[in-house]
């Protein structure tokens, strides 16, 4: 007996939801093993995790905070992935947004009102991320260099550059020799919704960006062009679509949106630039899953980033409530995401048990 795998035409909505729920359940069943080994009741564990992220006002506030950078980087990736430009470099693009915003904040922040300096920071952050995104786009279109490799490697270059800045020329005078820039002046920091850590300006920008991205992808010629060059660059050429131009614009948007996330993190959370892994803590990579779960639809990014933010926040309780080691959090999150991605397979394909040899 053989398995036969064949492509589906279009999965109905019921199947989609069923696959999602079954994937989650299967992922959790696997994760239960870890809790059982450590002597924690898995159902109790799940209820704690969910109440830690979605089930309490406190958890919800934190989940929203965490979902802001995921939303921005995630929506950027939907644009790139629709054009089949496999941007693995949102992490680096986020960092360059943070660098650009830090530069503005430290240079002009003290002498300007926040109404001037905050828009300037977001503007420069967009440009910073976009510039870092354009380079791999040009390398792909002009030199035929695989963008998976370049964007991935550019993350490390960006991280090393941040380290160079905070250990070298930008090291703060007021930071006792530690690798932090000076703290941003108050005019260059984002205000928070009282008694939360939600820097709402970035959240509003994220939602606006999602609306814009949705409009571009779904309603404009350019959105159509993105899909065409993604599916078949040659066909695009015959239709008069410039592969180079379209790819570059895709990456201006994708990198720029990630750059905005970087601005939000330095201006809303940290208030200075420091170690790259502190500024980003892997948002650029997590957002790959955000974009994928959203089925590359910008609007669904709101839901998927909120969900992933919740997974990250709920992971706290694995440590605080059960006293399990940090690694458990990563294993739990990893298993849930792995199963979600595996579940995706069943939406695209169906497996038939073939009774006879082919």
């Amino acid at each position, binding site marked *: 007996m053989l398995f036969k795998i064949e492509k589906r035409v279009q999965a109905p909505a019921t199947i989609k939801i069923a696959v999602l729920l079954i994937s989650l359940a299967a992922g959790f069943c696997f994760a239960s093993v870890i809790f059982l080994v450590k002597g924690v009741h*898995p159902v109790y564990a799940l209820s704690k995790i969910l109440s830690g992220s979605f089930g309490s006002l406190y958890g919800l506030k934190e989940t929203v905070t965490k979902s802001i950078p995921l939303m921005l980087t995630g929506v950027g990736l939907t644009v790139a992935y629709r054009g089949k430009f496999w941007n693995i470099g949102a992490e680096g693009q986020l960092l360059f947004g943070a660098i650009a915003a830090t530069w503005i904040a430290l240079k002009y922040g003290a002498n300007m009102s926040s109404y001037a300096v905050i828009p300037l920071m977001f503007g420069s952050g967009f440009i910073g991320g976009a510039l870092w995104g354009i380079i791999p786009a040009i390398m792909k279109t002009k030199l035929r260099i695989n963008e998976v490799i370049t964007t991935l490697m550019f993350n490390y270059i960006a991280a090393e550059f941040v380290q160079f800045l905070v250990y070298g020329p930008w090291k703060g005078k007021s930071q006792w020799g530690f690798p932090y820039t000076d703290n941003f002046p108050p005019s260059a920091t984002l205000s928070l919704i009282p008694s939360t850590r939600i820097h709402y300006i970035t959240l509003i920008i994220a939602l606006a960006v999602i609306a814009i991205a949705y409009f571009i992808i779904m309603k404009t010629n350019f959105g159509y062009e993105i899909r065409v060059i993604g599916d078949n660059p040659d066909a695009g050429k015959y239709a008069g679509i410039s592969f180079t131009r379209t790819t570059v614009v895709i990456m201006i948007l994708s990198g720029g949106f990630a750059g905005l996330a970087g601005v939000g993190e330095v201006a809303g959370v940290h208030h200075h630039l420091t170690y790259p892994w502190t500024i980003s803590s892997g948002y650029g990579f997590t957002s790959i899953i955000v974009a994928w779960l959203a089925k590359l639809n910008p609007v669904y990014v709101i839901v998927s980033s909120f969900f992933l933010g919740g997974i990250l*926040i709920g992971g706290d309780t694995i440590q*605080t409530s*059960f006293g399990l080691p940090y690694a458990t959090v990563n294993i739990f999150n990893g298993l849930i995401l792995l199963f979600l991605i595996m579940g995706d397979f069943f939406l695209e394909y169906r*497996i038939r048990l073939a009774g006879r040899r082919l």
Partner: protein
Amino acid sequence: MAKLNKLMVCLAAVGLVFIFAIVSGNADAKPEKDSAVALAQPKKLKAGFIYVGPVGDYGWSNAHDAGRRYVQKKFSWLETMYVEAIPEGDVPRVIDRLINEEKCDVVFTTSFGYMDATIEAGKRYPKKVFMHCSGYKQDKNVGSYFAEMYQMYYLSGLMAGALTKSNKLGYVGAHPIPEVVRHINAYAIGAKEVNPAAKVYVKWLFSWYDPARAREAAESLIAEGCDAFAFTEDSPAVIQVGKEHTEKGKQIYTFSHYSPMQRFGENTVVSGQLVDWGVMYEEILMKLHVGSWTNDDMLWFVKEKAVQLGGEFGQAVNPRFIDALKAKTVNDRIFKTISVYDLVQKRLSQFKEPMITFDPFTGPIHDQKGNLWIKTGERGGYQLLWTCDWFVDNVVGRVK
């Protein structure tokens, strides 16, 4: 389609069976509570510890957790919990959880980068107590504490300077921050005192924990001729390199860092620095318990027993190197002709005197460019040493 539905039903069934097995099989497993806490005590205290690394790092976070376990065992009125590997940006949230959901009375935040978040948390929760490790800010309900070991690095420098054959000492450094720079300087000052020709060669890792790069750095320093190593990295990687070369016939001397690492290389570890956070946590929690806590900036040294000399607790110098250290003599202004081994012991007892009668950072001390930082007869002092971003003149390398 029908086939797929069947498959889904199968999957769902498997999932349900799995869940059912879990629910029925382990229904009474609840998270453990410490039985000591259940004892009737007038005032219980719950302390939360936040670590920047995993407790298994064999360095910083591990040492803090050893301190936590020590006080947990010691005080029946104390309940403790910890969270590990918390990035700086996430610490406000974790503090909130420890206070609101886990009902901690006191929170220890054990990384420099947690400082501002700890001060802000102090304002948010004026009735709770916070202790921040390695920073310089305090508030009404926020204290700070640190165990400093530059004196031990100086003693390691004395021994390294005496033992080296090549006059080249190596140092594998984590991050170029004042704490590490200060320790390298103390090590170099010690080496210079017994061996004016000794120079310290520095390589940076830009990481607190990276055994692979620490190993590479040590190997390349050995290739440059270094034969005595101190380091700041939370693994015994440098010691393992020393052990391998020693076994091959080239004696490398190493100095253990932070946790007892002599067990990883008995033939190479001469001595080292050990930190015992337990004594500091004991003091802080006891004061909280009896109600005499104040928002001090606690800076403890070997005098207060927060720091010890050695590669294992209770053994200041590895016995197999004592003869070599006794054989080398130097002329000291006060002690006259004295063996390095005896000098180490004398200095150690000076560090333990109530009025510490010796400090390694006593002038004249020049940096690499010849600038005089500490004048003759003066001591470096807190402000200078805690912001130090220059190397003394017998260090080769750059504070980037």
